[in-house]
């Protein structure tokens, strides 16, 4: 499955997403590219009823997920009755159309 690329600092092990040229923890310059694990837990979320221009949906749940290997990322939550701490499995689907092109991103469904 396609997914995001995160960056693990070679000096201190700090995991970053998105990319930065210096480690936010130790200012290190070298990183190992890593992929998030398939599962994680929901850290926080919001149900957005007022979406921006360009997203023709009634509402969308957005949330921050911490993957089991420490990568943290925002994504679209497709689980009913979201709650903090919920276990989620990541997917990779179109999340927005920008300038006529489908843009893919992280989506999450409920899992054990």
């Amino acid at each position, binding site marked *: 499955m396609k997914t995001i690329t995160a960056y693990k600092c070679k000096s201190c092990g700090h995991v970053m997403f*998105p990319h930065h040229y210096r480690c936010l923890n130790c200012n290190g310059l070298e990183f190992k590219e890593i992929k998030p694990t398939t599962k994680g837990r929901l850290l926080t979320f*919001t149900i957005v*009823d*007022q979406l921006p221009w*360009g997203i023709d949906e009634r509402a969308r749940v*957005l949330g921050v997920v911490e993957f089991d290997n420490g990568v*943290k*990322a925002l994504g679209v939550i497709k689980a009913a009755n979201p709650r903090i701490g919920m276990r989620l499995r990541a997917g990779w689907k179109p999340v927005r159309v920008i300038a006529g092109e489908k843009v893919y991103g992280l989506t999450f469904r409920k899992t054990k």
Partner: protein
Amino acid sequence: MPAAAERIENGPASGGSAVKNGFLGVASGYYDIVLVVGGEKMREVIGPKATDVVASMTHPEAEYIYGVTLPALAGMFARLYMEKYDITHEHLAMVAIKNQENGLLNPYAHIQMKITMEGILTHPQAHVNSPIVADPLRLYDCCPVSDGAAAVLLTTEEIAKKLKKPRVMIAGVGQATDTHTLQERSDPTDLRAVRIASEKAFKMAGLKPKDIHVAELHDAFTILEIAESEHAGFFPMGKGAKALENGETRIGGKLPINPSGGLKARGHPVGATGVAQIVELVWQLRGEAGERQVKDASNGFSVNFGGFGNNVLAFVLRREA
């Protein structure tokens, strides 16, 4: 004429940034007089387009593509902050009610309307007036989309002494940054940039939060007024909502917050806000704030919050004897 002109773009902190740079220009001795003007025209487009333009300040790869909006970031922050510090929806509504009451006393306020707890929250049909924007935040937890402008004239002490107005000094300026995205913060409930910018401004002014008589905080969302009042040091962490509930932050209370109506009622023309906060403090410290005058105010404080707290300015203003 001729003078020199510059444009400063720093998102919602543009106004504060412009005042800071004007201050540096005068304080360095290079300029005698700097006119700082902040302005924004946001109502030429419909709401969802304005929301999208504002959302373009979020991270292009990690946030924007998902349809995240500034209210959505505030909603995710509010969910954690409210849980951590036992803040209720009633507390959020109290901020909105207080600031719109203050706005009624401000002829320059965008929103001039009294609201009630029943009308925006507790009535079974209250969701008609105040629908969910980004849960837990409702319409009345969010500032309006506004057109507006504000200006301040900064000059040297020598020139100011020749003028007839009471002198108001920029006694302290602080600025600090935080991560671009919310998820990169080790504690997403910690508004680190607000904390550091405030500490710097107080240190430079040689004053403490208890010395402040009036504050203008960046209440783009009701939760932010409570959170900023704690991070700036006016109340211990988790006690801001209680102070609000006790009426300490009303005009006439121990520390009036947002007597202008704040972003909630004065409006939030993005680039103008940081300047408008300074304008309000100057009026308050000069005793020119009319019906919303905070009694005997001689020290003022403001927070101008850029992005979702990734670039924040704080100011301490002092009336000179």
